[in-house]
């Protein structure tokens, strides 16, 4: 599904990603772990298409398409979803309006008619249950005045609405208390299907108690330096990141 080969990316003059390789197939859950400043979030941004990161070498293909040929919105419509570490507040845009625009624009890209309003409302109701958000959600402005936990739940809710093929969740566990963490993780698990894939980027092993990965990658200095199964996360928790650095 997603194939990243020898990816190098800069911000300004500084090289952040230094030859990263990653293969994600349908039905898989991957975890990317690693210390601060090793380029985990940069990876998510480059896949999303953020302009301030300049790709200098390497390739990313998604379901056979060259990602660099696609705009940010086209990547989304192709089925890539990014869950942000710091979701942006958009005052004045209600979640219902935001999601309806997003759903229908993605449908337009795929050559489908807009979703009928009643169907959309039913879908909103159904999907917000996944992350235990209340009915009042629809009328609220996107992330405005949301608590840290609500913002992350809202990310997973949007993921549920957009039904992506690939979700990259960047530090979705940061700033969550244990209850919110459980809800967010359960949401991700409920959305898991044989034809989609999830990449979770995290600092801590604790998220992986809830979202069980098929693969764990350790990232350091702009590259993936070690790949294993879920036991690698436990080993890392035990030995610390210095173990990787040495």
């Amino acid at each position: 599904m997603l194939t990243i080969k020898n990816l190098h990316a800069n911000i300004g003059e500084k090289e952040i990603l230094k030859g990263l390789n990653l293969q994600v197939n349908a039905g898989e859950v991957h975890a990317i772990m690693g210390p601060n400043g090793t380029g985990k979030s940069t990876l998510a941004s480059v896949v999303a298409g953020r302009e301030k990161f300049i790709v200098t070498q390497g390739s990313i293909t998604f379901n056979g398409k060259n990602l660099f040929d696609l705009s940010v919105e086209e990547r989304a419509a192709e089925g890539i979803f990014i869950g942000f570490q710091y979701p942006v507040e958009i005052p004045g845009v209600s979640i219902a309006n935001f999601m309806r625009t997003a759903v229908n624009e993605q449908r337009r890209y795929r050559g489908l008619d807009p979703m009928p309003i009643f169907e959309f409302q039913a879908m909103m109701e159904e999907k917000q249950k996944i992350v235990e958000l209340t009915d009042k959600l629809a009328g609220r402005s996107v992330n405005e005045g949301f608590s840290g936990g609500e913002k992350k739940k809202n990310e997973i809710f949007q993921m549920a609405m957009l039904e992506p093929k690939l979700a990259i969740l960047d530090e979705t566990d940061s700033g969550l208390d244990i209850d919110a963490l459980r809800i967010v993780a359960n949401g991700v698990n409920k959305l898991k299907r044989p034809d989609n894939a999830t990449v979770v980027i995290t600092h801590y092993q604790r998220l992986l108690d809830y979202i069980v990965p098929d693969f764990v990658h350790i990232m350091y200095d702009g590259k993936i330096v070690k790949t294993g199964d879920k036991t690698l996360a436990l080993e890392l928790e035990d030995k610390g990141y210095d173990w990787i650095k040495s």
Partner: protein
Amino acid sequence: MKFTCKIKNLDAYLLILHNGVFDQKSIRHFAPPKGVKIIPCRDTRPCVSTENTGNFRIEITPNTIVEKPLQLINVIDTVEPLDVVHAFEIVVGQGSSLSLIHCDESMNNVKNTIQTNVSIELKSHSSLQYYNLQNINNHSTLNNQTEVKQHEHSRLISHTYTLNGKILNKHQHIDFTEEYANSDVQGLYLLDKNQDCFHRIRLNHNQPNGRSNQLFKGILDDSARAHFEGYVFVEKHAQKTEALQNNKNLLLTDKANVQTHPFLEIYADDVKCSHGATIGQLDEDALFYSRTRGIPEKQAKTLLMYAFAHDVVRNVHLEPLREYLENLIKRRLNGENITCENCVFSCVR
């Protein structure tokens, strides 16, 4: 001649001026509700003493709640360029309330200068919602002068919308002549091409315990220009005054120009006053975030601009009017020409 202004679902009492002159037929057909008097100035003490029959006074007798809004339309269709002048006075009696929608509407492309003088007096415990819209053609100039006198516990909600016209001068002067007066003064301007808009607001807190809130927002495209001057004056004995002012602008091009001048003159020492002025571009992070959800850049920009503008429109209390404005703003932000040139949505003959 019959005009109807197409604000969908708005059930209003309609008063028509034709090129600034009172349409006698309109007033004859106008059956004012109980407690509402429309008095042409020549029949009464001079409000603005001219021969112009467009001058008149609206009086709301004490303790009258006027249920339906009053809609006043100045229809402009002169053949030659002319100065179109009209003036009116509103007196809302003690304990009474009124909603007034006032629009100046061009029916053709003749370059006019439209002068509107509005004088408002709010007696104690009265309230007025005053919505000032204009839909003049993009060659014409509008000079709009509004003066308000507010007595004890009176409440003013004033909205002014600027979407069309070449040069638009809007001056509002509000005096709190007694205690506990309360004012929300808001405005929205969406300008493009070489439109030029000037707001000058003067809010005098002459008495204690007054509250005022100014909110003016603007979006400027092409080489449009806007100027905002907001004076807030707090007298020495006007203690416990609360006065807020905010002017926010979005500039979409390098050529668009905004000047914003807050002036606060405060002589009392126990007050809560604040002002803010911003001039900026669309939030890049919000734009990127929207795009990662699959919303194309153009639509994402429109969505964010609409949200910016809606901050003002959401405070419109009359639902049909709010919906009308929401639709108008959406269309304007999508680049549609919404002047009366085609008369699609506006006044039809």
